[in-house]
C-alpha cells in the first residue's frame, strides 16, 4: 500500500517534470536459501545502474537514457525515460558478500543469499 501511494504522484508528475523518478516494476520471490528480485529495466546499461544495500535497505537506482535518432523527428511518445529508484526493506539477515546481480534482456536479476544465521534449522525431537 505504501508503495502504491509512492507510485501515484510520480506517475502523475512524469509527463511534466522530466527529472521525476520512475518506479520500476518488480517481482520478489523467496526460496529456502535466497531471495530473488526481478526488476524491469529496459534500455538501462550496466554502468547506469547502482545497487546498494545499507542497513537492510536495498536500493536500485539509475538512469534510463532515451534513444536518440539524428535527423528524425519525434512523432509519438508513449513512454518517457529518466531517473528511476526503488528501495526495499530486506527483513532477513543477508550475506552481504554474496549478492549477485545480472542484467539480462532489460531485466535485472538480483540474488540475495540469506546469511547462515537466517537459514531455517531443523530441530529433531529426541525420544525420551
Amino acid at each position, binding site marked *: 500500500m505504501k508503495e502504491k501511494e509512492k507510485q501515484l504522484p510520480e506517475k502523475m508528475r512524469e509527463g511534466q517534470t522530466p527529472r521525476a523518478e520512475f518506479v520500476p516494476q*518488480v517481482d520478489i520471490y523467496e526460496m529456502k536459501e535466497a531471495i530473488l528480485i526481478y526488476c524491469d529495466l529496459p534500455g538501462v546499461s550496466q554502468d547506469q545502474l547502482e545497487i546498494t544495500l545499507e542497513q537492510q535497505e536495498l536500493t536500485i537506482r539509475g538512469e534510463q537514457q532515451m*534513444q536518440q535518432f539524428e535527423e528524425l*523527428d519525434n512523432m509519438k511518445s508513449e513512454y518517457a525515460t529518466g531517473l528511476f529508484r526503488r528501495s526495499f526493506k530486506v527483513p532477513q539477515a543477508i550475506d552481504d558478500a554474496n549478492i549477485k546481480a545480472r542484467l539480462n534482456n532489460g531485466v535485472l*536479476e538480483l540474488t540475495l543469499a540469506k546469511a547462515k544465521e537466517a537459514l531455517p534449522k531443523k530441530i529433531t525431537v529426541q525420544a525420551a
Partner: protein
Amino acid sequence: MYWIEHRKNWSPFDELRSLQREVNRLFDGAETAAAISRYPAVNIWGNNEKVVVTAELPGVDPNDLEINVVNNQLTIQGERKGDKPADEAVCHRAERGTGKFVRTIRLPYPVESDQVEATYKQGMLTINLPRQEATKPQRIEIKAA
C-alpha cells in the same frame, strides 16, 4: 451534454445507463484508459525517408517476438513468460505482467516490408522502416512556357 426531460416514465436503470455512458465518454481517449490497453509502449521517430519505432519490452525472448508489416501497418506480437525460479519459491510481489500481447501501429506512410530491420537489445526493441520508394514525395519541375 444532453438532458432529456422524461420524468413520466422514470426508471433507475435509465439513470444507471446514462451514468455509464457518461463514464465511458470520460475515459474514452483519456490517457489512463489508453495506456492499459497499449502494450508495449512505443515511441516513434520519423522523417520523409523512414520511420523508427522503439518499444520497451524487457524480459522477452527475441525468438518469441513476431513482427509483421503490411503497407503502413506494423504489428508486434509475442509472449512474455514469467520467470518464477522454482515451484517451491514463495512469491512476495508480482508487479510485472506476463502473457501474450499484440499491438498494431499505423505508420504515416507505406514502408518497404522487405527492408524492415528489427533489433532487440537490453529489453528495447528497435524497428527501422524505410519508406516505400513510390510514395516518396516527387518534386515537380515547372517548365517555362
